């Protein structure tokens, strides 16, 4: 199912949570809404689910206006941050709930529901746990119950709010792959909210980066990482050293630091340099190495410029010995934005 968000606005009191948001989501796509807390990403997700209603704008499902349709009428699957499992029901009952409450022509037979529950338990690798209560499960298992409960109603779109937020690091990684697998197996249009860029970049087909109720950039993980369109995106996605300075004649300068800025207009600007884009270069600017240590295949270096700005550099492991005392650096590439 395609989803269109058109000029959606939402205020909580005087605080604008969504500010004229436009977004088109293709059928079968896996989209991440990425942003810091308070950026409006969860509000946008809840607006799509019908758990919030916008002050202005439209939400369309396959071209049909559902802006003010109730959550119950939308057939979306929603996975809540804290899972919101029904704790007085068994896992099987939780998963069956969406089918159990159907009435009229939509009603499913008991056998059919039981079969569907079994299939879903198999899909999320929880076979045999149907009779447990949520309190008897681990965090990762609860998350998978929440996922299969949302999938049970064969939703036209699957929405997940910080789906891995409450889990520890190792479980997060395996569940991330699991979500990708489930998405590929079901083909359901999926949107998930996260503040973790690694999660968004690894998992999603496309990433929408939100800041202060606006979408700053929408694109594939590669696009947003390698070609950030705004200073915010550049600073938020991937690691970067940030400088405030001036552009003049295609060069950016901030104190002793100079960076390439081909094509940037003259005037005050902000520049970002990824740690791996800083290389040793005798013609470059001088920094003092504070600390260099080996991290797997890389060398992580902390340094200070002559006027006291801190810098992070990521170099090859073989170069570790060269980072001592004073070294000279230049940037292979910098992202420069007019301030």
């Amino acid at each position, binding site marked *: 199912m395609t989803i269109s968000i058109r000029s959606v606005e939402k205020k909580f009191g005087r605080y604008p949570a969504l500010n004229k948001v436009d977004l088109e989501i293709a059928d079968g796509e896996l989209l991440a809404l990425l942003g810091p807390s308070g950026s409006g990403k969860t509000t946008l997700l809840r607006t799509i689910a019908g758990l919030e209603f916008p002050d202005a704008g439209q939400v369309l499902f396959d071209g049909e206006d559902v802006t*003010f349709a109730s959550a119950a009428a939308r057939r979306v699957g929603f996975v809540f941050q804290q899972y919101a499992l029904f704790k007085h029901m068994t896992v099987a009952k939780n998963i069956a709930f969406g089918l159990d409450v159907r009435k009229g022509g939509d009603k499913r037979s008991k056998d059919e529901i039981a079969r569907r529950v079994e299939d879903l338990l198999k899909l999320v690798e929880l076979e045999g746990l149907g009779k447990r209560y949520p309190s008897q499960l681990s965090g990762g298992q609860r998350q998978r119950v929440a996922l299969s409960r949302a999938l049970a109603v064969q939703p036209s779109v699957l929405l997940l709010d910080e789906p891995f937020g409450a889990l520890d690091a190792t479980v997060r990684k395996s569940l991330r792959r699991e979500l990708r697998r489930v998405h590929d197996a079901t083909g359901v249009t999926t949107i998930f909210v996260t503040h973790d860029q690694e999660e968004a970049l690894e998992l999603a087909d496309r990433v929408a980066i939100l800041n202060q109720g606006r979408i700053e950039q929408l694109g594939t993980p590669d696009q947003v990482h390698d070609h950030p369109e705004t200073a915010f995106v550049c600073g938020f996605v991937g690691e970067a050293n940030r400088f405030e300075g001036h552009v003049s004649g295609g060069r950016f300068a901030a104190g002793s630091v100079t960076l390439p800025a081909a094509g940037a207009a003259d005037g005050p600007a902000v520049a970002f340099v990824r740690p791996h884009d800083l290389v040793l270069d005798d013609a470059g600017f001088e920094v003092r190495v504070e600390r260099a240590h080996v991290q797997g295949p890389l060398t992580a270096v902390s340094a200070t410029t002559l006027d006291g700005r801190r810098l992070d550099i990521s170099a090859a492991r073989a170069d570790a010995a060269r980072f001592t005392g004073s070294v000279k650096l230049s940037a292979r590439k910098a992202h420069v934005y007019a301030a």
Partner: protein
Amino acid sequence: MSRDKHTARRATDDPLWAKCLLIGLVLAFLALVLILPLVAVFAEALRKGLGAAIEAASNPDALAAVKLTLLTAAIAVPFNAVFGLCAAWAIAKHEFRGKALLITLIDLPFSVSPVVAGLIYVLIFGLQGWFGDWLVDNDIKIIFAVPGIVLATVFVTFPFVARELIPLMQEQGVSEEEAAVSMGASGLYTFWRVTAPNVRWGLLYGVLLCNARAMGEFGAVSVVSGHIRGLTNTMPLHVEILYNEYDFVGAFAVAALLCLLAVVTLVLKTMLEIAQPGVRGHGGH
């Protein structure tokens, strides 16, 4: 699916008609069960005018009842406040076996009928009781006298302060106390300077409820009082006597005073809850 902005209803919202119906139903029920009796007391008290009501509430017997009620509360409330602090301190800040049992036992007077509470003191201190002969020999009167009334009141109001403070102190944990002790403070000093200030609003809340019950207690006090006018009648007992003598203006005039006490208690309690949301009551009484 086509609803508009005004009819759209959030998932946790009830339909407007249901809201109106429920609010109406609840307000009607509360008006019938709670407000009407309150209004009736004042209406009956003022049936023969304000003057008659004031006179009925200020004759010597009524004044004696007011004095005894105040005296009883003045003994029972501080006693239970101090006990409540000690008990909550012992329970919340220390680990020992049988803690749950101790909490249940402190709560026990809430589940005992007030009449039974009065009865136990008659059985102990009454003429035929355990100490009956000894008390007669030494010319000490407890039952049908003020000490019995105080004892019965202490019993029925026993848990009020403790049960407000126990959960409050448990929430606050022991880290502040441990910090104070580690800096060399003595146990008593720590209690007065660290623990007590943290729970003062909870203490006030408990004292407020304790006082309302102490001044209003009827069943337990009725059993041990002997209903001697001017001597062992508290205000609620005085209300009963006047009512049974068909002196309705008198009965309701004194009752109106007790209503005022209840209203003041509720106002103070509400103010405390608004100013100190943490002290919200901990269950029934």
